[in-house]
């Protein structure tokens, strides 16, 4: 049985930057064992400290905005947890501004918020970040273009084919239907996979709303078997 595949195409003209960057030649299809099943990067050199998963405590004061918990499981193609794998996140602040010097949006920076975090998944493949809800921000893709609020995620997993860099969106965001980046995924079921769910069970009373977002990586942790 072939798994449904909701990957976006490289060329999606509505997202203008793809037009000069998407390859036009056919990509080479290799047998999986020649590339896809090769051991993924040993990311052990990327430093991960215990406090890196709490983006609200990286400065002397608390950042402005709505404090949230982002949590979920990282699974492989067989639905098994991907343990102790690196999860990197980055995002805009509550006003929709990135610390990155490339960002020129005239919204305020927050001296108490950088917006970058890292953690390793636990024995059950769980990750957990505390952060603030990012704001929407304008971009120049087309007239009056605004990105829906999102958090960037980067994951490694066990194999070269497991590498995933993507974005997580928030449920009910009115900008979602207008976003060419999310709309590049043609099938609504695929777009839904990138939208977190409000998680009342993990929400902490008098403290923070929680959102749950599970991630499925390509490839399998176990020795490949045919069948």
């Amino acid at each position, binding site marked *: 049985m072939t798994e449904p595949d909701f990957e976006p195409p490289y060329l999606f003209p509505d997202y203008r930057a793809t037009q000069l960057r998407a390859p036009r030649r056919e990509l080479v299809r290799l047998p999986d064992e020649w590339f896809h099943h090769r051991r993924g990067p040993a990311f052990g050199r990327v430093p991960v400290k215990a406090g890196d998963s709490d983006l609200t405590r990286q400065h002397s004061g608390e950042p402005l905005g709505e404090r949230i918990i982002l949590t979920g499981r990282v699974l492989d193609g067989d639905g098994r947890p991907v343990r102790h794998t690196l999860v990197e996140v980055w995002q805009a602040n509550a006003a929709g501004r990135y610390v990155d010097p490339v960002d020129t949006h005239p919204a305020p920076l927050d001296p108490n918020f950088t917006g970058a975090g890292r953690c390793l998944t636990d024995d059950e493949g769980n990750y957990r970040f505390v952060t603030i809800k990012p704001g929407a921000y304008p971009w120049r893709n087309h007239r009056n273009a605004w990105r829906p609020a999102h958090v960037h995620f980067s994951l490694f997993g066990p194999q070269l084919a497991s590498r995933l860099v993507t974005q997580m969106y928030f449920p009910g965001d009115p900008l979602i239907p207008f976003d060419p980046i999310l709309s590049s995924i043609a099938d609504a079921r*695929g777009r839904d996979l990138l939208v977190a769910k409000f998680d009342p069970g993990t929400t902490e009373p008098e403290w923070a709303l929680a959102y749950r977002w599970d991630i499925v990586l390509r490839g399998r942790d176990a020795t490949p078997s045919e069948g």
Partner: protein
Amino acid sequence: MTVPTPSQTVGPFFGFAMPFEGDAHAVAPGSDGAVRIEGQVFDGAREPVPDAVLEVSDGQQFARCGTDAEGAFHFTVRKTPYLDVLVLARGLLRHLATRMYFPDTDLSDDPLMRLVEPERRHTLVASATKGGLRFDIRLQGEEETVFIQL
């Protein structure tokens, strides 16, 4: 249901988050067997791509480097027959994968090279320079790099 989570672009604003200390050096520069690799990333208009980040690995070694205003990147690695290379950038909804062969690797029986038209094979091979190796990546157009279907 275990449908793989789809990819989205790394965007332009990763420069404050993805770099880490010594990220471009899988081995210490100047150490025994260390090789410096330099290159540039170009788009379909032959313009440099200043907002890409590359990752190279061979199972043991791993290094990451963002491109600068000239689209330039550099790595220091231990010599190996080839490196797997991932390219992430604004405008790439999914990362691209390719392979960089060291110039003296015997490619006569290489399974990947056999699948590539002979006139495009050179896009996968680094060239020797005075200080190390040169490997440019062309995302599109004439001399487009051979990329691997993920």
